[in-house]
């Protein structure tokens, strides 16, 4: 009997030493750049190195660009940190977009509605912060409550909450529009700068960056060393095991989602209070979803997310730069981003599995 020969066989690997893991990842990035080069030449006829150089310039070309890069990195990282505790619990929170949005909305609301009653900048900022945290937390609490009480599907629930948040913001933007008929609210408290977060060392973006840096470390410690972090890990693994260990699963789900939402609220607060000073419906701009990818790519490790969020911000800003410099449309930049992500995610397969090619020689026959 002669069956068809398989050419190769796929099997799971044991643990690889970290050096090998990073070699595989490095090789994947090199390969991705190579494929991108070939694509660039074929499609645009441009010198690929010039294109890469431009990308780098777009990200770190000037001091201003560098600050923008770090600010964007901080925001994306912050949102990624926010979704991570929920993800570790296997609670698929894809509502970060909306949670940040309501945080921003609450922050703007305080700035606009209370500006005639409060003159202390500090008090104003504290109120903005509290409102943002509370709004984000509420947006996290609702799906968690329904999940723990009636086992609703959290993915759909959090997704739908995004649209509510965006429409709510749209409503209030028209309500507070300035000047009338503009359809936008412009810079809030532009002349008094009431409720604007202070610039450190003359740098407007430094404060939010520092806040996120602190948050990264705090969340790393929270997840790894605290009792809460342990509960989250056990609930994520198996609810049965968690109950067996005396963990109150419902409480952990709600508490973690409130935390997740509150961190999103904090990002909303930073966006309005420190960087943008205005509210638009595109303020979050899809980063609530990009954060999902950042968190997954880093395998839910807050420190790893520094790198993965940097990677995505780099690609995004670099893509914009080459689009404008070479008069390419942004779709081409998206293609390059797609190719690079494909290789980076795809290489995980080679880290987890090995492929054995079968020899076709027949001994002894």
């Amino acid at each position, binding site marked *: *009997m002669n*069956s068809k*020969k*398989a050419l190769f*066989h796929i*099997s799971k*690997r*044991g*643990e690889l030493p970290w050096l090998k893991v990073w070699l595989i990842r490095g090789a994947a990035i090199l390969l991705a750049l190579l494929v991108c080069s070939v694509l660039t030449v074929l499609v645009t006829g441009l010198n690929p190195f010039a294109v890469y150089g431009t990308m780098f310039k777009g990200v770190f070309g000037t001091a201003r660009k560098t600050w923008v890069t770090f600010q964007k990195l901080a925001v994306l990282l912050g949102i990624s940190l926010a979704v991570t505790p929920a993800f570790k619990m296997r609670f698929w929170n894809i509502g970060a977009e909306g949670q940040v949005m309501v945080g921003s909305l609450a922050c703007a609301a305080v700035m606009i509605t209370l500006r005639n009653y409060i003159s202390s900048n500090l008090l104003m900022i504290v109120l903005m912060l509290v409102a943002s945290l509370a709004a984000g937390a509420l947006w996290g609490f609702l799906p968690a409550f329904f999940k723990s009480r009636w086992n609703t599907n959290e993915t759909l629930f959090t997704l739908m909450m995004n649209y509510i948040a965006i429409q709510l913001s749209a409503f209030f933007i028209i309500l507070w529009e300035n000047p009338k008929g503009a359809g936008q609210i412009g810079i809030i408290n532009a002349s008094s700068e009431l409720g604007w977060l202070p610039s450190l060392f003359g740098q407007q973006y430094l404060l939010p960056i520092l806040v996120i840096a602190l948050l990264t470390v705090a969340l790393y410690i929270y997840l790894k*060393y*605290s*009792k*809460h*972090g*342990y*509960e989250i*890990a*056990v609930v994520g*693994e*198996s609810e*049965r*095991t968690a*109950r*067996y*260990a*005396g963990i109150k699963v419902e409480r952990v789900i709600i508490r973690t989602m409130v935390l997740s939402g509150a961190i999103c609220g904090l990002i909303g607060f930073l966006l309005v209070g420190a960087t943008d000073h205005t509210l638009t419906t595109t303020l979050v701009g899809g980063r609530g979803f990009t954060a999902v990818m950042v968190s997954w790519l880093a395998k839910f490790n807050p420190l790893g997310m520094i790198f993965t969020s940097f990677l995505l911000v780099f690609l995004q800003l670099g893509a914009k730069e080459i689009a404008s410099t070479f008069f390419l449309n942004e779709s081409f930049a998206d293609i390059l981003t797609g190719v690079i992500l494909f290789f980076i995610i795809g290489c995980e397969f080679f880290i987890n599995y090995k492929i*054995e090619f*079968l020899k076709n020689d*027949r*001994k*002894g*026959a």
Partner: protein
Amino acid sequence: MESVQNAVRLEKLTKHFGNVVANNAISLELHEGEILSLLGENGSGKTTLMNMLSGIYYPDSGQIYIHGKPVTIASPKDAFAHGIGMIHQHYKLVDVFTATENIVLGLNEKGKLNLKEAGKKIKEISEKYGFEINPDQKIYDMSVSQKQTVEIIKVLYRGADILILDEPTAVLTPQETDKLFAVMRNMQKDGKSIIIITHKLHEVLEVSDRVAILRKGEYIGDVLTKDADQQSLTDMMVGHTVSLNINRPEPVNPTPRLEVKGLTVFDDLGVKRLDDVTFTAYSGEILGIAGIAGSGQRELLESISGLYPISKGEILYHNPKTGCDENLVGKDPMSIQKAGVSMAFVPEDRLGMGLVGSMGMTGNMMLRSWRNGKSFFVDKKAPEQLANTIWKELEVVTPSTNFPVRRMSGGNVQKVLVGREIAQNPAVLMTAYAVRGLDINTSYTIYNLLTAEKMKGVAVVYVGEDLDVLLELCDRLVVLCGGKVSGVVDARTTNKREVGVLMTRVGGNGNEQ
């Protein structure tokens, strides 16, 4: 030239998993028309070896010969093409399909699907080998042993002449085991060659012609069954002599510790899982719970631990620390645990609910201690120490205390679980299937641990599958059948047959079948 009387010849098969050598250059022969027992401790590489033969794993090196011809087996399909069929421990059947539908499922036959024809062929196979099966019965209506029958017919239907059975008797009653062995002998007469993996030495002696022994991934040797006895096999398997008698001291000063009265529970679907269950567990004794798998053992232990909703009945616990009587019904798992009632349940997948697969030993020790202390942070030192103690004392095979338990072999996982529960110093220690799938040596380690707990005055509740062990280890036996207590017997005076009958009798009301 190849010798023609070998159905299978393995030549220097080697398989690594990461740094672990699961099989090291193993050479083994299965003669035509022979029943070969494959014997070895847990983690000795039996299942890995058989998985290579059935195409689930691919060997790192070595050669497989089938009927004298060298072959490459890269997938279960290849294995089938060579007439090799494996019956796994966990059945792979579609519950809502009938036996026939399951058997023809995945067959790539040309033409229209003809279930009638298939049913006829199944009847023929059944009559030939002495199976009892109704081809039109749905799987969810079947007992474990009937499901197993379907699995065996499935491979026969596909024309297998080399059968591998991985621990087929683990879930069967003694009577069902006898039937299985009769079928195996019929298949042998028909010229089939069979490999059986089992831990039960008396079964090895009863059914096989020859025994091959593996130890720690190495092939130790083979012996004709007629030249072997339990002691010699054990010695070959573990490499040194171990005592085969379980030490069973008389209970010292037993007093009632846990009284279960009229316990009745229903599952999600409203099916009665426990029906008016009443018994008492005494301090200083091991109370065995016998019964066919799924007779309510799990529900019983979960009810006592506060994990299962109780609709009727009382669970009275005489707390030795406070001297008070407490009713455990309605308390949450944490406070029941704190009161001193501990449970080590080893489910079929061995992880299920007692352990967190992705965590290492330390993380799993923390399942019991994570709440200790007022600090916001977890204390990792004490669990780390406990993990190290268990690692050494119970000889757990793992590269480190942070190695995910999911990736340990089954026996080691159980040592971690049972070791942790004992370390809680419970007043009532409940274990379910604590030695499920464990080799003799490790099983005895666990029996001794349980007996030591009993001598400390702990009320030990032991839910087990192996009747021989239940009869040798326990002081009294509660026999469950269909959620009812069908009898409470003294383990010292009863015998296997009596318990076997109680296990299969619809309990309580004298309803003989």
